[in-house]
């Protein structure tokens, strides 16, 4: 028996009929064709499938597609601006060589987005703790931590920018 799901993915509404057991990650990859969200472990350890559900980081291999019904989903494909400008976290991963094979990267970027949303200026330790739900085999995490620090700085600056303009100096 199929179930109707209606959800918003990267700002666009979408409706499908799915099996009750279809995992959200398979729905995103195989039905919606958004292959940027990866599968790395099947048991919710690696975080490669991390997406934002109503702004919170979740592992999409741990949810059914039907649980996404009525919710707002953001995947890695929705992070860059519509003109293609990379999100500051994406840019920071590039600038700091925060990826090698790139397979875990979308999950790390989504987890980092949620981390910085809750804690805009995390310490090294807070970043490591905040990303411990994601596994990387290539980087030893050194440049991932740097990338998140660098993104935090950029995003902090971007937020601060309008204020001096308002003073009229």
């Amino acid at each position, binding site marked *: 028996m199929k179930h109707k799901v209606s959800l918003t993915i990267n700002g666009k509404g979408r409706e499908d009929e799915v*099996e009750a*057991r*279809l995992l959200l990650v*398979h729905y995103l*990859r*195989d039905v919606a064709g*958004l*292959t*940027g969200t*990866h*599968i*790395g*472990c*099947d*048991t*919710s*350890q690696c*975080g*490669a499938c*991390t997406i934002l559900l109503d702004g*919170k*980081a*979740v*592992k999409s291999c*741990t*949810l059914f597609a039907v649980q996404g019904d009525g919710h707002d989903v953001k995947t*890695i*494909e929705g*992070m*860059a601006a519509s003109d293609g400008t*990379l999100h500051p976290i*994406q840019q920071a*991963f*590039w*600038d700091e*060589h925060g*990826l*090698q*094979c*790139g*397979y*875990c*990267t*979308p999950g790390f970027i989504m987890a980092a987005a*949620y981390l910085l949303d809750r804690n805009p200026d995390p310490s090294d330790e807070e*970043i*490591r*703790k*905040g*990303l*411990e*739900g994601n*596994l*990387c*085999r*290539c*980087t*030893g995490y*050194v440049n*991932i931590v740097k990338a998140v620090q660098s993104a935090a700085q950029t995003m902090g600056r971007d937020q601060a920018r309008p204020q001096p303009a308002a003073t009229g100096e």
Partner: protein
Amino acid sequence: MALTTMIGARIHRREDPRLVSGRGRYADDFIRPQTAFMAVVRSPFAHARITSIDAAAAKAAPGVVAVYTAADFEAVVAGAMPVAPAFVAEKKQAPDRYPIAKSEACYQGEPVAVVIAETRYQAADAAALVDVEWEPLPAVMDMEKAMEPGSPAAHEGAAEGNVAWDLTYNADAEAAFAEAEVVVKQRILQQRLAPTPMEGRGVLAEWHATDRTMTMWMSSQNPHFIRLFVGGAMSIPESRFRVISPDVGGGFGSKISPYPEDYLVPGASKLLGRPIKWSETRTENLQNATHGRGQIFDVELAGNRDGTMLGLKLTQYLDCGAYVGTFSAFQACACLLPGPYNWKQVASRTVGVLTNKVPTDPYRGAGRPEATHLVERMVDLFTQEIGADPAEVRNKNFIQPDQFPFTNPFGLIYDSGNYPGTLARALEMAGYADVRREQEAARARGRYLGIGISTWIEICGFGPSAATAPATGGLALTESAHVRVFPTGSVNVYVGTHSHGQGHDTTFPQIVADTLGVPYDMVDLHHGDTAEGPAFGYGTYGSRSLAVGGLAVLKASQRVRDKAKKLAAHLFEAAEEDVVFDQGHFYVKGSPENRKAMAEIAFASYGANLPEGHELGLEAVAYFDPPNFVWPFGAHVCVVEVDPETGSVDMLKYVAVDDCGNVINPMIVEGQLHGGIAQGIAQALFEEVVYDDDGTLKTGTLLDYAMPTANEMPPLSLDSTVTPSPSNELGVKGIGEAGTIAASAAVINAITDALSPLGIKHIDMPASPDRLWKQMHEERAYSAQGATADLGGGGSEQAQPQAGGTATTPVPGGLGEGGTQEGTGGGTPPPGQAGPQQGNNQEGSR
């Protein structure tokens, strides 16, 4: 001459924008019209006979298209899977491996049937309905028991003792041992590891019956090998067999050799006439992808009390698993045993043993981490025995910079090195003298601080063909490149190597841009598609891409430049020797103002009015066979504190000073070191593949297999020295495996040093908190009884008295005896309980 501008520059990777945007192209991202999905029915037993297979229920399940067993595949796939016959002369009994078991399964996970269905889920459902009747056979799980007379056989008809090979490289170290004042002995274990790339394996295959072509999309480190081996087994010529492996989510050696599914997926596509797709689950990956390490070493070191090291003797027992892996022989680490030291004699023997586990094969470093670990451990045991400083003993025994090229006791020629240089810098960065003082003060307060040193060398850059072809049954491990300059001056480069994180899309164009003098942005690299570029390539592993493939890229670029120069001479109406090439422009000597850019020459090369005999076009193919291996080296220093109450290790400092010759892109070199060191630390502290006595894999998910998170990894301090290789024109070596080769010894030496006040001399890996806690408490109890001679558990054995009447280090457990440090599985608690926390602090997930 062109000035170097791009080589050595810290250029950001051009593959990254697509990878950070979710636009990568990994194996599971591909699909073809009419694709059906495959699930594999696998043996639940480590060793069992297949009595019958009843597929009726599976065939009747919703969406099922077909169920195939070994008999079905006989029509489309022939012959055994390949094994590089490095030890062919000594090979006693290595059973042939077929993609699918016919009558006997020899490891848990071996394929026995496949189910093809319309969806992934339907295939998985129906696979559970295939009714296989099994007759379980005794599982051979312990290497040492496997070698005993009367042991059950890992295969029906296997030779007595399950020995796959028994080979002595150098028999004799007796002279060195006879003159030694001190002999130290140790059994050193290398636990089995799972390479665990974040992307598992996956294959999509499409057979076109009308034009008789096969196309495969897959996750591979060397698509040309797959085409060679699978095409051969299916009698499809290479001209009609295309393997595409675009973005690959890590390999670490586990995506070199062909796997059963690499035959079964295209085989099923040919049988069914539809595209077939199979994507590995993580449990399938941990169970079926080749493992690494899995070895026992019995080692003896002979030296004098003044710190001179004289001789080394070693026997390696290598757990091959159920079959000898395609490149299993590359794990025999004899050739690297001498390390950076000047020995009188080194003797080495390697024994390959069959067990009922998944085969072992290269995992990052393959033989070289093992060699470095055991030599560096032995140096510390020797140092501890004579009461010397480990840094001083290393310095005393190093091959000196003026001794290169240096021929080691196995006849291998080290190209260049400055071993004291990297060690001095590493000690300086670590603040060695200060840390030693802190250690002393800490000990006085009952704290256990330790400093570990690992001075490593590496043999890499495989070929040369003269060495590799005999070892691999003809695979020369040369490398290829094709450089094409288009009429308006942009450039495409095709290579036979494969990039799966190494950044070749960036580094190889750096070489081309310099050589041709064209803008870097005009050069694009292509790899991972056998339909493009040179006819053959050998792929990426063994830190070979730059030192072999990079040189092919350089040679092909030089051929293009030489061709362009000839044409420039014609256009200038000058003699070729009068034409100057400078930063992408040609001019006649003395007239630099009248010059032509490479793009102008390129356009002319496709045009009219060329001189008679001039070959049209501007492109070239080059193959490169290196004259020697290359030999990177370095020194790593690790500082730890061990908590005696919990056995947990706090890594306070990790310093690495490495030398890989000239560097194309330092950012990428550092990244390779970060990841390599992390994998070495992971082996030292966390990871271990564990089977139970019946052959069931206990570490079959990432809940149980303890891969470290960011929380467990220390910050790293890196520096480098530059000692170019004289063996190639770029002066480059390799760096892909260096970190892994160096790190485990640095960490374990640090922990052992920390615990030396308790009488602990050796610790096996992983040094998990439970293992350390147990060992510390055993040693303490033992010391409390006033006994000091027999530390370390297991039976001790006195070495033969030496001239000079020396003390010897007790050996825990001889071969075949019991002992707490023996065996890679039995006595070791499973990791995971005390390993890293696989945390999950994200809301909404569970």
